[in-house]
């Protein structure tokens, strides 16, 4: 089985994550319930003829993928695999609203065309003239991990040697107002919001894109190797520990072999208990959290991966990400765990590039 090296990364998020640094400038939100992502200059990546039709998700996806490809020194990958929880929401809503408000008359096709879930992957391919394998996974909080798993399998078996894989989700007015209605999003008057000390249900929502170049070849830009990805549809809280232990055993590891655990706590008092269960397996391990910086969205784990890769490369955990005050040297193995409302559980295992 070939090793899977992560050689390039690109991240657009609520933080300024696209300029090559690692959280040098950070804005911690405690008062807003929906945060927009910070934008690079999209015109640097996309022609005016194309950009005029693009909603934010497509622009973020293209930009993030360009950063990743550039870093890895790849012009055209062999495959493009995208994950998105809600797809192209802005165009979906636009078209649907037009249908309803105009009683199905005078409908223009652009927003319909741009609303198909695989638009981001398709536009990236069009931009690059990449005729290779192109999949889009749309399954809530494991959309991105599905893309990673697919990429990992292809690299390991030697089927493909260079893959661009990523996750992207955008905020959108109507859908998020429905989410607010049913309590998925924090209520504005319930702040300040503390992801680590949740008192209320719901999460602060945001948007972003995280794209990664996965290759069978090690390079000077290599961050880490992707070792394994585990996905599970639904678990009770008392099943989390065995889910994690079984995953580690399959990879010939025990909990104490993990040097850093990255957790997807989002401040939802009703569901963050899952992470408490996970933590109990790692009493002496540095723990990292990130959704206080990224906000919650179906593919926010791509931001989590982005932080994990930097931690492995730099061999240190920035204070702002530390969930407990433990440290460890060297950092060789990182495990990420995420779930959303008790469903879409994922585990991602990374090794140091030299391991």
């Amino acid at each position: 089985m070939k090793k899977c090296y992560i050689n390039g990364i690109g991240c657009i998020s609520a933080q300024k994550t696209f300029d090559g640094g690692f959280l040098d400038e950070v804005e911690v939100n405690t008062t807003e319930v929906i945060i927009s992502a910070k934008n690079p200059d999209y015109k640097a990546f996309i022609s005016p003829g194309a950009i005029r039709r693009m909603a934010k998700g497509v622009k973020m996806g293209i930009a993030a993928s360009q950063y990743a490809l550039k870093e890895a020194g790849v012009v055209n990958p062999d495959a493009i695999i995208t994950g998105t929880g809600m797809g192209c929401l802005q165009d979906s809503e636009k078209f649907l609203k037009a249908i309803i408000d105009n009683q199905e008359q005078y409908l223009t096709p652009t927003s319909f065309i741009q609303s198909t879930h695989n638009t981001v992957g398709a536009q990236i391919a069009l931009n690059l003239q990449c005729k290779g394998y192109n999949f889009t996974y749309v399954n809530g909080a494991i959309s991105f991990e599905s893309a990673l798993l697919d990429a990992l399998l292809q690299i390991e078996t030697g089927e493909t040697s260079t893959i661009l894989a990523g996750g992207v989700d955008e905020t959108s007015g109507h859908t998020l107002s429905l989410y607010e209605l049913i309590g998925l999003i924090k209520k504005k008057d319930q702040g300040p919001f503390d992801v680590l000390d949740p008192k209320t249900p719901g999460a602060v929502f945001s948007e972003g894109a995280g794209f990664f170049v996965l290759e069978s070849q090690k390079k000077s830009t290599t961050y880490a190797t992707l070792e394994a990805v585990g996905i599970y549809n639904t678990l009770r809280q008392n099943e989390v520990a065995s889910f994690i232990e079984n995953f580690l055993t399959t990879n010939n590891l025990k909990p104490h072999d993990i040097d850093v655990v990255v957790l997807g706590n989002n401040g939802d008092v009703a569901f963050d208990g899952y992470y408490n269960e996970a933590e109990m397996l790692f009493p002496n391990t540095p723990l990292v959290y990130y959704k206080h910086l990224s906000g919650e969205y179906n593919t926010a784990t791509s931001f989590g991966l982005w932080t994990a890769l930097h931690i492995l490369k730099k061999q240190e955990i920035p204070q702002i990400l530390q969930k407990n005050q433990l440290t460890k040297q060297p950092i060789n193995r990182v495990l990420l765990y995420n779930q959303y409302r008790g469903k879409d559980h994922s585990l991602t295992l990374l090794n140091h590039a030299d391991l």
Partner: protein
Amino acid sequence: MPNKVAITGMGIISSIGNNVEVNFHALINGTTGITKTDYLNTIHKDTLKFGEVKLSNQQLESKLELPTDHRFPRTSLLGAYAAVQAVESAGIKNMNEVPTGLISSTSVGGMDKTEEYFYEYFDNEAIRRFILSHDAGETSHQIADYLGIKGLVTTVSTACSSAANAIMMGARLIKAGKLERVIVGGADALSIFTVNGFNSLMILTDDVNTPFDDNRKGLNLGEAAAYIVLESESQVKKNNKKVLAYLSGYGNANDAFHQTASSENGEGATLAMQKAFKISGLKISEIDYINAHGTATPNNDLSEGRAIQNVFGKNVPVFSSTKPFTGHTLAAAASVEAVYSILALQHNIVFPNKNFKTPMEELDLIPQTSLLEKPVHHVLSNSFGFGGNCSTLIFSKS
């Protein structure tokens, strides 16, 4: 066939039948399912025809014995209905005795509810449970929960090639040893959103669809759900399972030409077919029947026709599109046509490309217009979606 994966079960619901047997009889009797809509509340109800499943949501809920407070949109109703058949047909009694997953696909998801309740959600608390049913993944979760699957559940959404891609990914997970069994396929219900979307692209016909005909005017939208069960070799041996057919080849490529239109020379489609051949190890001449994507849009049929000629040269095997029977069922199309490909293999029969009168001016290609009995050992099935997504599956006799 070094990469073949066993297919041990299948299930389907479409406009020509609520199970495999009824679909088969419709195909051999030439009974198409393109009619006016009974359930869609659209201004186009008198001008357009659809491949509609003639069961209301209430009837489907009742057959599935769902509780009154369920939140299955129509896509999940259709999906669960077909998936249960597939599982039963594979003789699976204990769902999680070995690692078993579900890879479903959809483009509509819960859009039928989202469009129905767009504004009403704000005033009516009773229907708000459907808000969570909008996204594609949720329909897969609902089907998985209904089947009792605990494990890997995910969803592919690449427009009209979705189910082919779900099937492909399932096969790869079996071969990599990540799963012993996987239920793969797709479901899409009719919705006002898609009707108006396709209408705004001016690719719907106001008549019945006529694939590969020179005067073709566009497609009929349809709805359906279909699933097949893939199992590892060791599972088949251990349980002495009857293999319905093999998935022996698959390929996905991107046209990278335009967001909705296919390239004139069918490059993406050509690449997908070539990849499928490579995986299967089969020779071009070994294909006995092509179940074409054949949506009857001016663009697809020309592009696909060219691609078929690129790959097969002067020796194009018998081919047909079954979309005159079912309409274009979007994400489910490839799984519907997978079931039909398996039936072709089991019964040594090629289904007709109905409604065909005049060959396309540009190409020297004439589809099979009548039911044909002939030995069928290998079937190639194409499905192409928006975003240049081109997928090919090859099925082989067991």
